[in-house]
Every structure is written in structure tokens, then in C-alpha cells.
């Protein structure tokens, strides 16, 4: 791509749009950079593109090795040759969300007026719709008018819904997984704990930690630990750790005692190495602000009036963060506008994170749905 920057170490493949982006909050970004990864080949009619939207702490490395962590793509079980999202058939793209810290414009990007100083906490509040508008800009840049599918779990599912609501003619199929039409009070409450933990870290320096050459690791780790508990189910924690003790010989000493504690601490410490605290604040706020029905006087179905998009809603039985009831009410709202909806709850004890894990039923459902849609779209 002509505007793509060269790819030295630690930079991500990206496109910069000089015309900037107007945001829901009323402010504008003067320039917009979108970092992305793509796999597969765009066909001649540009009709086989699938956009994958990542979750809160995800990134664009959906199918290939993440250069920050060295770990495989976060959906390596799902996206690839012969896999449910088959890169032999589809051209798959994933962009880092607006407000993120993996190359797309966000709080760690240079400030519009004070560059090279980063935005930090002066980064404008963004919404899920803003993220989607940034993605739309990128998709248009690729020359794709209509996406074959927009697929995402959790916050990625919110983006898929937002795509279907904002650009119905540009989305043949939408697959919101373990998602909801709004962030519930309970969801917001958990996010607030994380944000407070970050703010309370003395190294946070009111968000100007970068000017002190430090990062609020403790606070960010606690935020991650709290959030992680909401991603798993009680049954999964019990299955993995139960009440197992870490170091039985050393019970008198203070420190981790239960295996689940050191597991959580590991989750926290590995997270702080790859994530920016101000991005965490920005993106959790964007999720909290999400309410598809709000601009439609609270009538969710109005967000989808006249839609011709085919929907697949998937929930997981043990997900208590985005419970099945949320997907069911979405399905019913879509029924109100006679939309084409498939809706399945997958039996799993793995909680909200199930969409990232090895769930054969879910993978079969996704594959089957896409195959059915490909036939209807004339791609088969």
C-alpha cells in the first residue's frame, strides 16, 4: 500500500489518513493511522473480505505471531487455511482499534498539536462507533465496498453490531459473539475497579507516566486481574485450580498461597508488558458508553430497521459477563425487523473467554454459518 510505512522493528503495518476523523464526542483527530494485518487474497470482485474485530485487550495479530509477545495469533484456532474462517477462501483483515496501543491512533500516539509529546489522558473519548468509522475508512481504502462478514467476540461483537447498524449496505453477514447491545451496570462497575486501580498507582502521575519514564504496572496488573476473573467461570477456575496450594511447605510465610493467586498474578504481569494504561482507560470507557438503542429512543430494533444483513449470534452458557440473555434480547430485537438471524448458545464451562478457546461446537457453527452465507452471496 502506497501510504504504508516501512516495517522496522516494533512498528506495525499501517495506513495513515491525512483527512483525520470526526469523533462522537465532538472533537476531531487531525490525522488517523490504522494498523492492520491481513491474511488470504482479495478476489477480483472484492467480495470475499472478512473484517475481524478484536476485543478490549486484543490486537490485529489475529492469525500470525504477535511481535510484542512472540505468541501465536489470538484466534489461531479459528483463522487460517482450512480453519473455520478459511483464509484459502476469504481475505481476512483485522485492525487495531482506535484508542489502541498497537499502531492505530491512540493515547500513546503523538498529540495533534504538541507532537512528539503523546496524547496521554488528553486523547479524546472515543466510542465503539468511532472505532467502526476508523475501520470503515480503512476498508474503503482497500477498495472493498461491501464486507462479506464482520466477526468479533466481546467488544469485537459490539463493533460487529455497530457495523451492521451504521453501514448495513456494507455488511453481508455480521457475527457478534458473546456480545450485547449495551454495556450493563455490572460490566461498567468492573471496569471502574480497573480504572481506579490504575489511577491509584503512584506511578500513574495523572496519566503523564510517560514523561517520567515509568508505567503504572501495579495498577494495570490489578485492572487486568479483576477483568480476568470476569472472563472465566467459577466452574473453570475450580476445574483448573480448585483450592490447590502453591507451596504447602511454606504456609507460614505471607505471599501467594493458592494456585489461583499466582495464576492471576501471571495474567497481570504478562499484560503490563504489552498494554498501555491510557489505552486501557480509553477503550474500557468506549465499551461502557456502548448502547446501540440509545440513539433510537431505547428501541433496539430501530437500530436495524430494514436490514438485509444475515446475523449469527453466539453466546456461551457459562458466560456471566455477556450472558445468553443479552444475545437472546438482541435476537428478538432483530426479529422485530424480520432480520435473518441464527442464534445459538454453546454449552461450555469456560465463561466469557470461551470464544477464544478450543470450543469445537462453536467452531463448527461458525464454519457452517459462513459456508451458508457464502452460498447466498454467490461465493461458494
Amino acid at each position, binding site marked *: 500500500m502506497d501510504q504504508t510505512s516501512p516495517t522496522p522493528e516494533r512498528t506495525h503495518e499501517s495506513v495513515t489518513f491525512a483527512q483525520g476523523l470526526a469523533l462522537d464526542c465532538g472533537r476531531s483527530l487531525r490525522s488517523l493511522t490504522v494498523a492492520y494485518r491481513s491474511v488470504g487474497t482479495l478476489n477480483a470482485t472484492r467480495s470475499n473480505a472478512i473484517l475481524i474485530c478484536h476485543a478490549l485487550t486484543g490486537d490485529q495479530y489475529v492469525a500470525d505471531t504477535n511481535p510484542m509477545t512472540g505468541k501465536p495469533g489470538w484466534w489461531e484456532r479459528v483463522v487460517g487455511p482450512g480453519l473455520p474462517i478459511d483464509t484459502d477462501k476469504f481475505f481476512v483483515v483485522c485492525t487495531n482499534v482506535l484508542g489502541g496501543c498497537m499502531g492505530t491512533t491512540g493515547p500513546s500516539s503523538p498529540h495533534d498539536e504538541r507532537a512528539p509529546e503523546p496524547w496521554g489522558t488528553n486523547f479524546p473519548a472515543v466510542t465503539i462507533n468511532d472505532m467502526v468509522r476508523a475501520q470503515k475508512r480503512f476498508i474503503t481504502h482497500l477498495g472493498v465496498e461491501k464486507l462479506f462478514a464482520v466477526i468479533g467476540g466481546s467488544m469485537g461483537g459490539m463493533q460487529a453490531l455497530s457495523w451492521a447498524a451504521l453501514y448495513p449496505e456494507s455488511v453481508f453477514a455480521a457475527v457478534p459473539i458473546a456480545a450485547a447491545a449495551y454495556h450493563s451496570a455490572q460490566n461498567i462497575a468492573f471496569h471502574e475497579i480497573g480504572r481506579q486501580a490504575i489511577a491509584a498507582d503512584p506511578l500513574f502521575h495523572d496519566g503523564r507516566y510517560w514523561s517520567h519514564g515509568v508505567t503504572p504496572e501495579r495498577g494495570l496488573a490489578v485492572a487486568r486481574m479483576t477483568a480476568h476473573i470476569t472472563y472465566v467461570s467459577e466452574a473453570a477456575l475450580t476445574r483448573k485450580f480448585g483450592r490447590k496450594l502453591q507451596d504447602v511447605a511454606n504456609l507460614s510465610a505471607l505471599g501467594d498461597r493458592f494456585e489461583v493467586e499466582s495464576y492471576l498474578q501471571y495474567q497481570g504481569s504478562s499484560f503490563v508488558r504489552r498494554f498501555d494504561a491510557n489505552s486501557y482507560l480509553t477503550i474500557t470507557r468506549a465499551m461502557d458508553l456502548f448502547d446501540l438503542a440509545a440513539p433510537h429512543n431505547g428501541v433496539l430494533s430501530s437500530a436495524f430497521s430494514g436490514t438485509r444483513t444475515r446475523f449469527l449470534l453466539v453466546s456461551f452458557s457459562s458466560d456471566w459477563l455477556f450472558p445468553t440473555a443479552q444475545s437472546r434480547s438482541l435476537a*428478538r430485537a432483530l*426479529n422485530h425487523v424480520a432480520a435473518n438471524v441464527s442464534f445459538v*448458545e454453546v454449552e461450555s464451562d469456560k465463561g466469557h473467554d470461551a470464544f477464544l478457546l478450543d470450543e469445537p461446537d462453536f467452531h463448527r457453527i461458525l464454519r*457452517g454459518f459462513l459456508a451458508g*452465507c457464502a452460498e447466498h452471496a454467490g461465493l461458494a
Partner: protein
Amino acid sequence: MSEPKKIRVDLALIAGMVAPHSRVLDIGCSDGLLIEHLFRNLQCDARGLELDMAAVTRAVTHGLPVMQGDADSDLATYPDGAFDYVVLSRTLQAVEKPREVLRQMLRIGTHAIVSFPNFGHWSLRLQLLFNGRMPMTSNWNRMWFETPNIHPCTIQDFFALCETDGYRVERWLAADEAGARTPWRRSRTLANLFGEQGLFLLRKA
């Protein structure tokens, strides 16, 4: 598009009542045999609603648009006239409020296609008469305390309900156990005695 496949004989009878290129909702669609047939062979926009999650999973895995839901509570969520045909095959007797389900079907669809096992069949009558016990047949094969068929009715009962609620019976027929049509077409009384299933095409009068 693959070659037209043979489908179950009862589903073929239902499909015979559906016009090509129409919008169809199949309530209790199981793993979606009928909607697949309607899509492939009649180019219908056919969708399904199914209570059993395992069946829904099989249908969606097969690429069919099916949502998990309940006839008793979910039909109310569709708009008026959303479909040309709303199908309820061998399920009416198992829903909580059959009359309300029928009302919803003819609100959201121009036509309703309904099939149900006929409780007026002679073998059921004889069993009740001679044994004094709830009948057990291949259609009615669960004990009274565990049967999902909580609202059995006869072909005559169904005609009576249609009349009360103002539904026009455009077509009807009695079928044998496999769903093949039987010759009791002219006489409701004979159909009610010898038909194992009733199949009706209704619209609002």
C-alpha cells in the same frame, strides 16, 4: 446448487403447499430439513425457530438460518406480515398455548401450515374404550406423566377452533403415520377416524 434431494414424505406434503420464492418461517424446524428443501428447490427465504439447542446447532452448522427460541414466547417478537407462510409441523400439541400460537402465526404470516397427530384416530379410541388407559401408539408413545404432547386434539377439534377464531381452511388433508396423504379427503368424519395426522393450510378469513 445441488440436485434436489428426496425429503421426508410429511415434509414434502408441506412443501407442496408453499409457493416458490416465498418467505417462510418453520417453527420447531428441528435440524432444518424443510427449510433446506424450501431454499434449494423452491428458492424460498426460509428460516427456522427451534427449541432444542442441539438441533439448532446442527442446523446452523449446516449453514441454515435457525434461531433457538420458543414458539410460545418468541413469535410475538416478529412484525405483522413478515412471512408468506408460517409452518408448525407436529408441534401444535406440544406448545403451551396452541390457540395463541396459531393467532401469532396468522399475525406474522399470510398463511399458516399446521400439522398435528390426530387424537381421534380409531386405534386411540379403541385403546381408551377397551383398556381404559391412555392410548400408546407410535405417534403417542410417551406415558401421560411425561409426554410433551400436553394439548392433544382431533381433526374435528381443529376444524372447530378454526371456525371459532375465524381462520379459513384453504386446504386440508389427513395423512398416515409417515405423513403420506390418505384418501379421506371428502369426509371429515372418516378423516378423523382413519387419519393419523391432520395437515392444514390456513389464512385469515
